[in-house]
């Protein structure tokens, strides 16, 4: 079971708590986790990555196990602790704006 923490606005949008848990069939990558997240919560499509380009939105970051994974390939394997459900994948909104 993969654990994902969402920023507050996306929790409100998806009507979920701080953390969601997802089953991933196959390899655990950013792409497979986001695919599963969007399949479960379709209202999140387009809010984390662009609909067309699939690029991460500039003001969002991906962290896990105290590492910034934002610039990793979406097909790179996530840390083993995330794949085992020991650590969450954190989707974090930039602290910016007014």
């Amino acid at each position, binding site marked *: 079971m993969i654990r994902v923490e969402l*920023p507050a*606005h*996306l929790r*409100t*949008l998806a009507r979920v708590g701080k953390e969601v848990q997802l089953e991933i069939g196959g390899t655990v990558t950013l792409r497979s986790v986001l695919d599963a997240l969007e399949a479960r919560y379709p*209202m999140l*499509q*387009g*809010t*984390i990555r*662009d*609909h*067309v380009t699939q690029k991460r*939105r500039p*003001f*969002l970051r991906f962290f896990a196990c105290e590492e910034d994974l934002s610039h990793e390939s979406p097909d790179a394997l996530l840390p083993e602790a995330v794949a085992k459900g020991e650590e969450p994948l954190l989707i974090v*909104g*930039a602290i*910016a*704006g007014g």
Partner: protein
Amino acid sequence: MSGVQVLVGTKKGAFVLTSDGKREKWEISGPHFAGWEIYHMKGSPVDRKRLYASQTSGWFGQLIQRSNDGGKTWEPVDNKFAYDGVLGTHQWYDGTPHPWEFKRVWHLEPSLDDPDTVYAGVEDAAMFRTKDGGKSWTELSGLRKHGSGPHWQPGAGGMCLHSIIIDPKNPERIFIAISAAGAFRTDDGGKSWKPINKGLYSKYIPDPTAEVGHCVHHIAMHPLRPGVLFMQKHWDVMRSDNAGDLWQKISGNLPTDFGFVIDVHAHEPETVYVVPIKSDSEHFPLDGRLRVYRSRKGGNEWEELSKGLPERDCYVNVLRDAMAVDRLDKCGVYFGTTGGQVYASADAGDTWTAIARDLPGVLSVEVQTLS
């Protein structure tokens, strides 16, 4: 029993202000979508309980929300605005070619006869349509692919399609306006478009009378006279009596003819409202006094309306989609400010009252007349 519902989009959420036909006491509900920018919110003219809202964020992009119960509850619908076919380029601020990039929805215009059909004006400038209540959006790409598209350039606020007006006598005819490309018209339901900017004069562009390139801030029309259009351009208040084929300046005795909003009285097609703003470099009222100006003669002769509005130290702006009218008798007029006030007049502009004082900066105001 009659009543009014004012739909207010702000920089930090949506608010719904409700009153009975007297328009003296107001209830405010919200914020809906707290923390998000609500660029625009509008109800279907044939189903007053069907509302659409453009919810957007620099972090999370664009969402479209739909309500089927007059704004009590909302559901997100499709938010995929994919340009049709080859992207092409428009001009960037420095004049270099720049590919079209979707940023946000500025304006949602529900169809006049079908609550499931809505037009969306977006940045970078294009028009989309849903026919299934927002489940999917399709670009009416004849506009973006107009031959002049590569020459369109953004205004300071982005290259936004901000005004959409459907001709009630001929739904195939739609008027739109883009900052800073100008106004356009389709006569075939959006398949093909023609620029309608003849008569506009913009001294800040290389060719002041160019076919496209004018910074049109807003356009308005009275539903009983769809051939007559009113325009607040960057500078200049304009009027066309032939569906935009030719414009004439009607600024007349306005103290300044820079501004953003313009609207028409619900029952008097020759009564027009604007809010003059000092200049394009100082986006606040002249002399710190917030004033609406009304012409009862279709322009040129304007009277100051200030009773109930701030007489000093007022330095707010009124953005392009932040004025609307109701259809009661007397006609109600409403506008919102970047300072978070919503002002209302229940007597066609003679007197004003703040019906909300401390909202986030107001981006848009629309009115539903309930009866």
